[in-house]
């Protein structure tokens, strides 16, 4: 073989670190396997598919363990830059933990929902879609070039549209899916446009390279680069459901099957935030003066509008519990944006990002827990109104105590210690960055949010109307509740477990 050909072969053939890419790959493979297996599994054995999916997600979580020892990277360029497309650093692992864990809990919730729905929901397709979306979401934090990032983002969100609209013959479900789909596709188109502008002006797709080259863009191309940056950011802001891109959230959550709403509230949010972090902090640190104020304003708007929306929920309206959780998740997204905005101002951007990661992990655990209790109550009270929770303590004391604990964690009040300290890290990121106004606004929002969380909590312990309904809790639901409860309680005792991300370098 001639020398140039050998060199070409070296460039094309590279050794792939299969262990590093194992978690998302395994999820995708299991997803495909489930889709194929669906054809051969008898009707009464369909529940098996669910358990296979749950096992696949659990195995993917376990595969994170061997990666803990250090930074791994694969799919790297062989030229001098050594820029890689897939990096498994602490940031990636933390987000993958959140995404896969969130998908696992959502899957546990789904097992019961699918069983209750009977033939209303097609099992094989459901699990395939859920696992594909989870695979995309797990790929996203590891991707370090814009092409992989966009692909991962689409793999994460396209199956989600289908999942939202999966309930056959349900008008609300299909309407929600359409709303979600149209607005999301618009956002993707916008960010794709932005990415192409950035590529045109810098000539690279790798994030670290963009960070280097965007600083000395050809004078003629600066407008193009600036436009590209703004458009990319807009696209990712949509995915976090930041105001003013939030309007699809409440209807989508109500229209979707409950576990999917839970999945979107945690994993969907994580996807958007991760993309935002990668684009802002890794790819465009030199544009901090652009995205810093923009994100700060976005965070302020998002938390205020989200909390105001949650405050407006009437307890007697149908699905008000899910609506409240939907609005509150918008409010929480606002808190999550605060440290990212602070990263633009502080000298230590990684610490700020760590606050977001820590807060997201806390939020993931307790929000999924709240959804698990909502799923439990929704089995007997299908309209899932807030008033249906009245007197839950009398009929199901443990579920009521847990929901109270989760809600207080979300509110950030003791005994929800982990919620309190997660808020403290966010506050300290803001104070550290000198964003005093944002911290004060967030303080007011925390008080507003307390009002609706505590109102719901108080409702749980009121005397029930009529005879208490018996909630029989099936095993998968109990497992989901147990996982989230153990996590939330353990974290309250040892907040360092997740707050360590706020103290160390992540990238």
């Amino acid at each position, binding site marked *: 073989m001639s020398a140039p050909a050998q060199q070409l072969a070296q460039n094309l053939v590279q050794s792939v670190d299969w262990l590093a890419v194992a978690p998302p790959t395994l999820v995708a493979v299991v997803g495909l396997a489930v889709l194929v297996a669906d054809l051969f599994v008898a009707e009464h054995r369909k529940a098996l598919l669910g358990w296979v999916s749950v096992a696949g997600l659990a195995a993917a979580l376990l595969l994170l363990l061997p990666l803990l020892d250090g930074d791994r990277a694969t799919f790297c360029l062989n030229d001098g830059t050594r820029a890689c497309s897939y990096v498994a650093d602490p940031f990636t692992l933390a987000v993958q933990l959140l995404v896969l864990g969130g998908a696992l809990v959502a899957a546990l919730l789904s097992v019961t929902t699918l069983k209750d729905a009977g033939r209303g929901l097609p099992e094989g397709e459901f699990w395939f879609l859920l696992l594909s979306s989870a695979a995309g979401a797990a790929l996203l934090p590891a991707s370090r070039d814009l092409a992989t990032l966009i692909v991962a983002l689409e793999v994460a969100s396209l199956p989600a549209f289908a999942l939202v609209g999966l309930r056959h013959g349900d008008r609300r479900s299909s309407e929600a899916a359409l709303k979600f789909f149209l607005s999301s596709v618009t956002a993707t188109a916008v960010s794709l446009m932005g990415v192409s502008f950035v590529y045109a002006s810098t000539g690279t797709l790798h994030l670290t390279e963009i960070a280097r080259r965007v600083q000395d863009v050809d004078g003629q191309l600066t407008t193009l680069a600036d436009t590209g940056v703004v458009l990319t950011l807009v696209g990712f802001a949509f995915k976090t459901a930041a105001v003013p891109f939030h309007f699809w959230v409440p209807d989508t959550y109500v229209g979707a099957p409950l576990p999917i709403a839970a999945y979107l509230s945690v994993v969907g949010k994580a996807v958007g935030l991760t993309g935002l972090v990668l684009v802002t902090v890794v790819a465009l640190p030199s544009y901090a003066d652009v995205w810093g104020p923009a994100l700060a304003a976005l965070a302020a708007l998002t938390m205020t509008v989200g909390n105001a929306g949650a405050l407006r929920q009437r307890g007697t309206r149908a699905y008000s519990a899910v609506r409240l959780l939907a609005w509150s998740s918008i409010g929480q997204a606002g808190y999550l944006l605060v440290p990212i905005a602070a990263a633009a101002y502080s000298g230590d951007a990684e610490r700020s990002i760590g606050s977001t990661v820590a807060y997201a992990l806390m939020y993931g655990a307790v929000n999924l827990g709240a959804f698990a209790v909502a799923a439990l109550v929704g089995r007997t009270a299908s309209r899932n109104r807030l008033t249906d929770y009245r007197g839950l303590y009398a009929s199901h004391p443990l579920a009521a105590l847990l929901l109270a604990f989760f809600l*207080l964690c979300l509110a950030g009040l003791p005994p929800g210690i982990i919620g309190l*300290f997660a808020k*403290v890290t966010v506050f300290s990121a803001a104070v550290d960055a000198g964003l005093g106004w944002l911290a*004060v606004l967030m303080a007011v929002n925390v008080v507003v949010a307390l009002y609706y969380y505590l109102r719901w909590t108080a409702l749980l312990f009121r005397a029930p109307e009529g005879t208490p309904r018996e909630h029989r809790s099936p095993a998968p639901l109990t497992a989901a509740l147990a996982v989230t409860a153990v996590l939330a309680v353990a974290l309250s005792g040892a907040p360092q477990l997740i707050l360590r991300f706020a103290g160390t370098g992540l990238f």
Partner: protein
Amino acid sequence: MIDINESVMQFLLALIVAGPLLGAVAALLPAPPGLKGKSPEQAVLRHGVTVTGAVLIAAIVLALGFDHGHPSRMQATTDISWIPALDVRIHLGIDGISLPLLVLTALLTFLCALHSYFRTPSGPTPKAFVALLLVLESGTLASFAVLDLLLFFLAFETVLVPMYFLIARWGGEGRAEAAWKFILYTLLGSVVMLLGLLLIGITAGTFDMVALATDNGRSLTTSVQVIAVLAIGIGLAVKTPMWPLHSWLPDAHTAAPTVGSVLLAGVLLKMGTYGFVRIVLPVAPDGFRTFAPYLAALAVVGIIYGSLACLSLARRGAKGDLKRLIAYSSVGHMGFVLLGVATMTPTGVNGALFANVAHGLITGLLFFLVGALKDRTGSTDLDTLAEETGAALYGRAPRLGGLLAFAAVASLGLPGLAGFWGEMLALFGAFDPAAGLSRPAFLTFMAIGASGTLLTAAYLLLVVRRVCMGAAPQDRPRLPDVRRHEFAAWTPLVVLTVVAGLWPKALLGLTDPAVQQLLSGGTR
């Protein structure tokens, strides 16, 4: 007084903070065999008495083992890293400033548990009541024992949810609204306080109160101190409460059950003033000096405002509620405490701490008495009680009437009882404020504050006249006099009021060295 091993002292302090929390969890579980009692209700209330009693004994032993020769030294200290990422340490310790408040809290909570044991609170299950009471106790005790800013904030927040439920579920008329007002006001204050604490901690690089107090604000620029003091001060002032941030207090007191009122007035308000002395004064002295005159002015307004509000409530035909009246009198009394702190002198701060404890004892007693009065007559409305001539408690229930008069007289600051020394020392402090503070302004505050004591005397004597005295017609039924368990619950408060009044050195000897050290920045 008695020599106790340091590690035993550490264990005692940890037990005092964590014990009630474990007790709260245990209260929610079914009673183990052998402790089932006559009924589940009785068993859980007895559990409450046992746990609070054990905590009280531990607190007393801790007080006995405390090295009274060196009250300015932190004792029984534990220092364990908890959340390295945020630099939060479980740093516990007591000195002469926190010890009296710790014992006071343990005592009042025990008395409250005892009270509830004999008179089951009307409302939902006592199980939750006892659990909430214990969480509340743990939060208050922790806030006096911790030496880490973020842990202090955690303890400060811990009391909110239990108190909310105590008011909202076991309270009287208008309880839902009052409970909301209480928690939203206090939370808004404390979140703002958190921002101030974070500013200090991040700028100075540590959240440790002892280290920050020793530093005495040297590593903080004046502008940082000013902003931090403003933020922390607002949070603490809401809790204290300082006029004009007090408006949650009268509603909360009026609606709360007896036990809730006692703990609210006796313990929770102290967390605000304690925060001023423990955090604001030593950590950011320059910032505090900027605000001291304003704080003093607002404190004096509070004194006058509280007294005038009480006077108008005590008038005939004003439909004044006794609990509301005592709540307003708390605004006045806490005004003296704030005035003492604002002088930044050892005299004033000692007076403030003394008044703190005295107010806890006396107002706790007053709320107990009013609660007892409500049990017997079904009303706390002064006009309903007094009718035409007066409620004539002296005639109808002489011991109860006598105790009420005693508490009222103690509250107005009669020399020889606990209420006197604190207010007098606070006024003394204002007579000669610390260097850098305007003396004429503080002299004016002192004069106004002193006239406030006259107004206090006026309304309290009016209350005594309308409730205790009056013509007792033969046909009016006699009321059941003080019962045995009530005696048991009130005697300690009465005795301590007299002892603190006659032997103030017992308390001042503890606080004074610690205060001197805090004010001089731990270098003494």
